[in-house]
């Protein structure tokens, strides 16, 4: 029996509570998932100039992302090769080199070890500096400016890893007139929960919306779209779509539905905004086949393992929510706000302010999610609680829906839990991989 079969019983729709708490399972995840999957590092717009750098994490490993003098972006383990000190202690900046504060080893922003205090006197010929540069992340790829790294030199390409998700991401990327940029700054907050609780929520948990966020949906605010499918039950025209490699998307609707809603909303902000929405739509029609362009925006999604994002509208932010693992029961969430570089100022301002209000650290949705995620942790950690499974049986035994032709993925009703099972099935496959 594969080890993971004890934890993920796919046919029965059951997942053991152990995988959210067990320190040994967590340690294995860091090795088999976070050291092997493509992980999100940030966006190129955060480091536009030669010498710009920012810090990040891959799993629990601290990372330094640098744009070299040649414009190439590289990522390194942010740890001196001598005694392991963090070489860069700032969140971002511009530097040609980094000097370790412990003994003064100095690295170029291309990773090479340049200087060692008392080099010849202290080491004689023993230290070959060429072998002691910063440890470089062997694979780094940018897509739509989004930077992803992979510690596994033999890993599949980012394109292959994204797989079917790429078809949908293209909609989000191609809709932007000037391309995605991140507004400067990041939000970071801690929550006491396992990283998978948050990731699976974005991968497919439309079921939680009416109750978890019931207080939000009662408000008369522009983010609450009257066409929101949350209250329409198993409505046939909104889909959750399970994708290969564990990725999942919710609330996909075809045939320009989200475009029509945007166009109507744009009228409130005047001709410039209406024109902008029309231009976004035109771009999509030119760049993509008609049925793909008709998706227009993506609702909320999770890219396996831990990058969640949402993209409801050209008038709202593209939110990026990275759930960094910090132990079996601790997440550090990093949030960024993506916008179209060439959107009119009024749209940028709308999106920026909007970002702070819903899923951000103070967001009226994130607050209630945090409470639920943390109390899941509290209520299931006991020895008896740990014997039980979580229930994902809502759609077990149901055949996938027939989605529109030529659209990738396994289609499920808007209220469904198959995307979560898809997430755990992939988790299990990686967990068992040698």
């Amino acid at each position, binding site marked *: 029996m594969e080890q993971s079969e004890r934890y993920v019983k796919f046919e029965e729709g059951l997942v053991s509570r152990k995988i959210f708490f067990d320190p040994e399972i967590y340690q294995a995840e860091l090795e088999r998932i976070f050291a092997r999957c493509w992980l999100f590092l940030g966006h190129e717009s955060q480091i536009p100039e030669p010498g710009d750098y920012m810090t990040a994490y891959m799993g629990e490993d601290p990372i330094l992302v640098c744009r070299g003098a040649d414009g190439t972006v590289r990522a390194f383990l942010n740890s001196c090769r001598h005694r392991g000190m963090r070489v860069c202690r*700032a*969140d971002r900046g511009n530097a040609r080199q980094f000097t370790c504060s412990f003994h003064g080893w100095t690295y170029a922003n291309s990773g090479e070890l340049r200087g060692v205090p008392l080099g010849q006197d202290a080491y004689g010929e023993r230290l070959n500096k060429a072998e002691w540069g910063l440890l470089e992340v062997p694979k780094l790829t940018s897509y739509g400016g989004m930077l992803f790294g992979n510690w596994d030199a033999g890993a599949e390409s980012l394109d292959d890893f994204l797989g079917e998700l790429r078809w949908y991401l293209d909609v989000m990327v191609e809709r932007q007139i000037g391309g995605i940029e991140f*507004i400067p700054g*990041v939000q*970071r907050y801690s929550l006491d929960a396992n990283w998978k609780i948050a990731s699976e929520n974005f991968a497919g948990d439309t079921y939680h919306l009416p109750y978890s966020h019931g207080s939000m949906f*009662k408000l008369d605010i522009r983010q609450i779209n009257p066409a929101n499918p949350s209250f329409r039950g198993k409505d046939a025209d909104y889909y959750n779509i399970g994708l290969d490699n564990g990725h999942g998307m919710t609330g996909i609707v075809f045939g320009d539905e989200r475009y029509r809603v945007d166009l109507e909303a744009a009228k409130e902000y005047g001709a410039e905004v209406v024109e902008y929405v029309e231009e976004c739509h035109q771009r999509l029609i030119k760049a993509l086949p008609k049925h793909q362009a008709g998706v227009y925006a993506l609702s909320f999604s999770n890219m396996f393992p831990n990058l969640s994002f949402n993209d409801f509208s050209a008038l709202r932010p593209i939110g990026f929510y990275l759930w960094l693992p910090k132990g079996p029961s601790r997440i550090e969430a990093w949030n960024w706000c993506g916008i179209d570089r060439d959107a009119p100022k009024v749209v940028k*301002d709308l999106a920026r*302010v909007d970002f702070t209000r819903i899923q951000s650290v*103070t967001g*009226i949705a994130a607050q209630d999610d945090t409470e639920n995620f943390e109390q899941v942790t509290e209520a299931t950690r006991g020895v008896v609680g740990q014997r039980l499974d979580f229930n994902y049986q809502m759609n077990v035994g149901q055949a996938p829906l027939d989605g529109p032709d030529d659209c990738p993925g396994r289609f499920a009703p808007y209220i469904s839990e198959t995307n979560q099972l898809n997430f755990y099935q992939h988790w299990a496959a990686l967990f068992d991989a040698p």
Partner: protein
Amino acid sequence: MVGHELQHSVEQFLYREVRLLSELRYEEWLDLFTDEVRYWMPARETIAGQPDALAGDSEMAYFDDDKAFLAARIERLRSPLAHAEQPPSRLRYFVSNVEIEEAGEDEIDVRCNLLVYQSRLERTEVSYVGRREDRLRRAGSSWRVTTRKIILDQTLVPRSISVFF
């Protein structure tokens, strides 16, 4: 340097304001803001050589609310489905280091330090530490807040924020 009377009046206003928050009297608290208030908490980062690396006006913020959205937040908190504050947290606010500068005939700029302690359910404990930069406008014998800038010292916020500052 401002007179004792002004200092006293402003401090009393600030103490009363945070008492309303700790007693969850949010509607009365909102009445202390002008209709055009910007309630803004810029994000911050650790940047070499910049002791106060705050996000700018069009950059990342934690809060960027007008009065209407503050009212929406309060309306939400009154819902039994606002799980983040059901049952309610215990909140304690500490305001200190109140400094005042005149800013025109009817307005003053007020800086203070702020410590907010949140105790929630059994063992959730969070402290937010920072400062505020307010512009207050005279309203009869008291004041109204017309801009509020909240600056946390933490760059990693200890928990998602379900309280006001």
